[in-house]
């Protein structure tokens, strides 16, 4: 009370300042919002608990350790119907990741080619690419996936066409690749004296693959050292020593030596019984999802690439020519770095879309995370709340990883304006 003093209201605090004074108002608003949020959350949780009680269910993730009882066709890791639901979910997750990585790679390739060709002077090519981009962008991806799957199952020969003395179809590339309507079979690597597997967190990691990757990685590293020393000599003397044979030696000899040591040979697919066996099988469902997603997303990537190239003004290449740069170097040092700054952020958000669209796998029977954990498992156990939460969490983590990478890249290439 003693503080009230008409001359200087500073320092005194009245309740109405919570509403009128900009210094305190934001706290009022935030506390109000916080209370609302907490009330809302409490309401939702209370409802959920009461609903679960009414249905006689509990909230637990124990079902992940129960026997799943169903089979999965594409198994990157060992799995059969006697394994647990949790293991099935991991198989699904791996399938999702495999598909996402494959589709991202091909969508980029298709998109870059289509984007560049759409700018081509060739009238037919330009029109064809426009038709491609517009048709694929404007029709739902689900329809494309279904259509691609139908085209493959309808137009490729069934394995039975390969049978008999005078088969209707034959294998390609010296009997090493079989294209059937159940998938494409290619030769797979086999190791006669392999190193076996190393079990980590329930996943079997192939030691052969690890050894191979380590050797290749080391070779690349050594090669870079060689190149760097060559550059050093060039800087000092002006003459660049010939390095290509050293690079060749360093890159290939250790890898080939390792493969020979491990007894590497190819296993060819062979028609046995109902199906081809041996080699690596790319199932129809994987191919349909892969092609469907990459052609669809490729159309978007094409537009991104086109606008990226168009965004670089002619002056940039003219300036580069004026400096005496050759066309190749102009592209590499001037145009691409600038175009990439425009292209990469939307490109990565397309990668994000591909990852999320892999969840349409069930439409063609691809057993991704959504079909295993979010499909059959939920269905057989009736644990939709837990299953869906887990499913969303996994997708969220994948998306967050991708966007973190994107933000990291964005910050690195951001135009520093002063």
């Amino acid at each position, binding site marked *: 009370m003693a503080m009230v003093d008409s001359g200087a209201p500073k320092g005194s605090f009245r309740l109405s300042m919570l509403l009128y004074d900009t210094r305190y108002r934001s706290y009022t608003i935030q506390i109000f919002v916080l209370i609302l949020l907490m009330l809302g959350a409490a309401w939702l949780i209370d409802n959920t608990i009461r609903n679960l009680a009414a*249905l*006689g*269910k509990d909230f637990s993730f124990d079902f992940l350790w129960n026997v799943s*009882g*169903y*089979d*999965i*066709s594409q198994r990157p890791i060992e799995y*059969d*119907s*006697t394994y647990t639901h949790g293991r099935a979910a991991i198989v699904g997750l791996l399938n999702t990741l495999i598909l996402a990585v494959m589709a991202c790679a091909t969508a980029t390739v298709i998109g870059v080619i289509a984007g560049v060709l759409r700018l081509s002077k060739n009238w037919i090519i330009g029109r064809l690419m426009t038709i491609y981009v517009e048709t694929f962008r404007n029709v739902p991806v689900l329809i494309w996936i279904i259509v691609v799957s*139908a085209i493959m*199952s*309808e137009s490729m020969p*069934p*394995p*039975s066409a390969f049978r008999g003395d005078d088969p209707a179809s034959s294998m390609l590339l010296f009997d090493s690749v079989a294209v059937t*309507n*159940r998938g494409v079979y290619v030769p797979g690597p086999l190791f006669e004296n392999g190193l076996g597997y190393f079990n980590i967190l329930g996943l079997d990691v192939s030691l052969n693959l690890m050894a191979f990757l380590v050797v290749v990685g080391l070779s690349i590293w050594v090669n870079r050292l060689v190149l760097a020393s060559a550059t050093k000599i060039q800087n000092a003397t002006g003459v660049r020593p010939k390095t290509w044979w050293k690079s060749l030696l360093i890159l290939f000899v250790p890898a080939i030596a390792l493969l020979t040591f491990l007894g590497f040979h190819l296993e060819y697919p062979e028609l*046995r*019984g*109902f*199906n081809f*066996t041996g080699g690596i099988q790319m199932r*129809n*469902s994987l191919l349909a999802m892969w092609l469907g997603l990459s052609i669809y997303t490729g159309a978007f990537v094409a537009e991104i690439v086109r606008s990226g190239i168009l965004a670089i003004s002619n002056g940039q290449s003219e300036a580069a020519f004026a400096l005496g740069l050759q066309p190749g170097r102009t592209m590499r040092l001037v145009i691409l770095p600038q175009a990439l700054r425009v292209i990469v952020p939307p490109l990565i958000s397309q990668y994000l879309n591909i990852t999320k669209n892999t969840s349409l796998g*069930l*439409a063609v*029977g691809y*057993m991704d995370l959504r*079909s295993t954990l979010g*499909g*059959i498992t*939920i*269905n*057989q156990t*009736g644990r*939709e709340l837990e299953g869906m939460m887990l499913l969303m969490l996994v997708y969220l983590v994948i998306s967050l990883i991708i966007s973190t990478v994107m933000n990291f890249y964005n910050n690195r290439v951001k135009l520093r304006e002063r």
Partner: protein
Amino acid sequence: MKKSVFMGTLATAALVAGYASATTLEDVQARGSLNCGVSTGVNGFSAPDANGVWQGFDVAVCRAVAAAVLGDPMAVNFVPTTGQTRFTALASGEIDILARNTTWTLSRDVDLGFTFIGVNYYDGQGFMVDRALGVSSATELDGATVCIQTGTTTELNLADYFRINNMTYEPVPIETNAEAQQQYLAGACDVYTTDASGLAATRASFETPGDHVILPEIISKEPLGPLVRQGDDQWADIGRWTLNALIAAEELGVTSANLEQMAAGTSNPEINRLLGSEGSLGEMLGLDPQWAMHAIAAGGNYGEIFAATIGEATPIGLARGLNAQWTQGGLLYTPPFR
């Protein structure tokens, strides 16, 4: 921006209508229509025709229940459900009864909290293969590619069968019957497996049905029946006895043709009790005395429904088999109406 009103209208309307009252029967009567979950389309069991009217064997069960409860077989809202959404739709009260060829299993009955009100079709899982493959028994299917419908007990049975017989297979999981059929016909799988009734229905629609054989092995028991939520015994009883009434009507010779005449009273007291001219069975269920008569009038007795939707005269062409009356060597055996 003002469009958020749209939400308001709907939300208020929905919330006002949404709070369920005590029993399902009261709900249905207050609503004036029955919400019945069916599949999104299985030939002969439930599929909308060109006029958007749902037809089929499962649909007929819904219509009979609606007729018994409300007196009007057309007072049914059909809610299409997928293999994945069906149980939630029932558990959440979105539908009152689920008639979607669902197999009666212990875990569904006990763990998922439902009550099966009977069996309207005794089925079993079978295999269909192309005749050209020359396969005559399911035990020759080692290494085959098998098309299965997901979200069913089918995939579990299949896994068990192949494991027991020490065979390998390549599963191709598929969501809808239509899709599975297309894959099978294109040769993308060697074998199509689902309930034998579904196989017959599917084969019937092929251009050349004779090129495909259904293998003799039936690898599972699939008692398909309608189900309701656990905990509302009155509603379960209504469903159960409506189904029983259809079966009993066939056994007792009550058909849609002679229904009127028999309802007036017959010398057989059981028929009289069933059709409400004697006793008070309807009252015990909390229904009209003529409940069973309405139910039978909706589509005829069990035999007539069977013949009209999936029987030998239809394109599906299923024989009665296990689904004949017990007097004919089948499994249909209803408890007495007294």
